[in-house]
Each structure stands twice: as C-alpha cells, then as structure tokens.
C-alpha cells in the first residue's frame, strides 16, 4: 500500500476516540469528521456507536445527509450499532430518527433489550469464523432486501450485513481487540478484494 488510507470517524457524538484508536491500530490515518469539508478529505467513513436519535439530529443540523448518501456511491462506510440504525431504510415501529437509508435493511432499535440485558457473545461471521462481539443496547436487522447480504446472525437475529460499499454491525468491533472486521473494511476501501473475502 502506498500512502496510508485516511479513515474518517463521524465525530458529532459517541465512541469517536475508540474508533480512532482502532483506525490507528489498523495502520491507517484517522480523521474526526464534523462537517462537509472534513467528509471530502477521507477515503472511507465510520458512523460510530452513540445515541442514534442524538446523532440523527446533529447530522441534520450539519446538513450532512445528502453528502453521506453521495459518499457511499464511491467510498466505503462502516456503521456500528447506532451507525447501523442510521444506515437503515426503515425502523420497525418508529419513524424517529429519520435514517439515512443507505442500505436495504429494516432495523429494530434496542432489539435485545435494555442495558442489563446487554452482553458479549462469540459470533460466527461469514468468511471469518468466530468473533467475540460486544452488544450494548444493540439493534438487530429484522429483514434485508434483495440487495443486502447477511454476514452474521445471533439467535436468528441478523447482526451484520453489507450492501455495496456499506458494511454494518449491531455490535462494537471498536471495543474488542480483534481487528478482522476493521481489516475487512479497510480492504474494501482499498478495492483490494472482491465482495466478502475476509483477510484471515
């Protein structure tokens, strides 16, 4: 690889520094993205965990919605937890927050329960094997459209999927040491692999 990949982390609210640390561990250059100009300077974007209603409001306030929709036409995006919710086409039983609709998935917020039901579990990820995954008041994907591909499920609930440039996880790879999901995302962003080949 030539110059380091520049990975942006949307820095309006949430686990921003955790993602920036993961980007650094993965040998890439991290940039906190707060506005449209920042977005133009990165090769890939991460929508971090946080509160999706808060993030949705701040994204609208910065008028970033159309820019993010245009971004994923040419560059990869990783959404984790709240980031996954923002990517959804629709939210089950809830019109708020208005999602970005980056992916043909229908999502149920807080689908595993409240904080006391939050958990870690070993998850079988397509092409990568077992990964320890951290779920915090996590959503799940209730259904995927024809364009989206399921990469992992837990108790029959879909928790990881991808469609084109967009990769989403209901759990938090940034809170674990395992770099396989991040490395896969980076490989997507460098165009180094065909769809869904994990670097093991």
């Amino acid at each position, binding site marked *: 690889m030539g110059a380091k990949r520049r990975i942006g982390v949307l*820095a*309006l*609210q*949430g*686990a*921003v*520094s*955790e993602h920036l640390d993961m980007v650094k561990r993965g040998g890439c250059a991290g940039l906190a993205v*707060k506005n449209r100009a920042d977005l133009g300077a990165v090769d890939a974007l991460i929508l971090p*965990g*946080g*509160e999706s*209603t*808060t993030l949705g*409001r*701040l994204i609208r*306030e910065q008028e970033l919605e159309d820019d993010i929709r245009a971004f994923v036409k040419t560059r990869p995006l990783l959404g984790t*937890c*709240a980031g996954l919710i923002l990517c959804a086409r629709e939210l089950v039983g*809830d019109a708020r927050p208005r999602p970005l609709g980056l992916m043909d998935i229908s999502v149920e*917020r*807080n689908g595993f329960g*409240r*904080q*006391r*039901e*939050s*958990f*870690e*579990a*070993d*998850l079988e990820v397509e092409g990568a094997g077992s990964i320890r995954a*951290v779920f*915090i*008041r996590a959503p799940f994907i209730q259904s995927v459209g024809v364009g989206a591909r399921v990469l992992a499920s*837990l*108790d029959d609930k879909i928790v990881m999927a991808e469609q084109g440039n967009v990769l989403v996880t209901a759990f*938090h790879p940034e*809170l*674990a040491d395992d770099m396989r999901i991040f490395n896969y995302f980076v490989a997507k962003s460098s165009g180094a692999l065909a769809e869904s080949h994990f670097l093991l």
Partner: protein
Amino acid sequence: MNKKYTGTDTIKRGMARMQKGGVIMDVVNAEQAKIAEAAGAVAVMALERVPADIRASGGVARMADAAIIEEVMRAVSIPVMAKARIGHMVEARILEALGVDYIDESEVLTPADEEFHILKTDFTVPFVCGCRDLGEALRRMGEGASMLRTKGEPGTGNIVEAVRHMRRVQGQVAALCAKSKDELMTLAKEIGAPYELVLEVKTLGKLPLVNFAAGGVATPADAALMMTLGADGVFVGSGIFKSANPEKFAKAIVSATTHYQDYATLAALSRDLGAPMQGLEIASLSREQRMQERGW
C-alpha cells in the same frame, strides 16, 4: 443459542463510552423526557425533583417513586438513568429490578450511609458516581463504578465548582502520569486511591473511565467550557427545566457540547435564549448545604 455474558466491565463501561460527547438531562415526568429526547439528549435522569427543588424544599431526598421512573422509561427510547442514595444498596437493587440503564449513586440525594458506598461490582447494571478529585474517582472505580462525573455543586446554576473539580481531576491525572513508577505507592497513599488503579492511570496516560461534568451547567457556554476543560460530556440537572425556554436551552446545550470549539456556532446558539435558571452564589451556602461534601 450462543452463550451471552452480561454485566462484564466491557459492557458496563462500554455503555458510558456510547454517551460521550453528549448531554444527559434531568427530567421529572414523561413530557420533559420527550422534550429532552427530541432535543438530542443521549440519556435522561428520571427524578422526583430536580436538584434546585430538592435544595429549596429541604428534608430527606430519596430514590424517585417507581411510577415516575416507569413513566419516563415508557416515554422515551434513549437510556434512562435514576439516582440511589449513597450507600443504599436496596434502592439500587430496586432500580436494577425496574430495568433502568444506569444508576447514579448520587450526593444530590440524602446519604443513607456516611461511611460506605455501594459495592457496585455486585450489580449487572452499571453505576456512575461523583468525584471532586482523583482519589475519590479511583475509590469509586475500585468499588465498581463504570462511569464518573465531577460533582460541581448541584442545583446552583453556578459553574464554578464544576470547573474546580474538573481542573483538579485533570491536573492530578497529569501530575500522576509525570511521576516515575517508584513514586506511585506513596501517591496512592496520599490521595487515598487503590495502588493498582493508580498504576492503571499511569499505563493508560488517562482516566480508565468516561468522566462527565455535572453540577452547575446552566448555559450552552457552560457546557462548552466543561468540554474544553476535558469533560467527556455533561449532565444538566436544573439548568434546562428551570430555564425560561427548556426546549431551546436543551437543543442549544446539545449542539454546544458537540461544537464546543466552534465559537461562531456557540455565538449563534447563545442568541435569544431567554432567561437561564436563577443561579446561587456558592459562598451563600453553608458547608452543610453543599451536596459536594457528601461522599467518602
């Protein structure tokens, strides 16, 4: 079925990490909770009375009625926190049974124990605790707190104590990290902190837990000030619903917390807000009236 591990440190501390850069607002009913959620609060604290009213009414302040907490939990989809008295592990167990997402073992309520705090490692639900200095922060962490907040002086709308406590904690962390390892046992003794946690701060170069600011935030500028001083986010107690225009204050404080270094934005957020909550001069409070003195 995959085995699920609940209540791990990663889960409890991770929840606080998702709140960073956000505002947690005190609310006393469903209507206020909905205003807070629409404004972009990352969580609400369900209470019977906000700190300013607790201060004004006197008497013993206890955990809120379960009906109020359940009303707030039904009203919003964001996390709901609630307060237990210092040392009152049964109030905490009740809050855990109700399903609140975070418990604040809080000096805003009248302490139930003047010697011991709750052993928070025993719980699946995470706790946030107040601190005024690094020793207090690490003692709470030693008991199992998953998140910290500097205390400030609740219910005053006066930022001076919040600033004092945040500067002290940040300054002590910096001083600790500048010391060599052979000095750390004596430092642990001096500040009354567990040695292993002092060592952990040195290794990490920062506090191991998320640390919000609390106790006196009344305006967007106050929130931005606390972020500038190194807070990971802010709690706003009386500052929102004791202001003339709660909806506007709530939105402005959320945006100011995100864009705390963008002064043109802060200027716009500070325009035509209406009256903030009435403030209190700290010197007008006797030592017994200062909630920050509670906690050991």
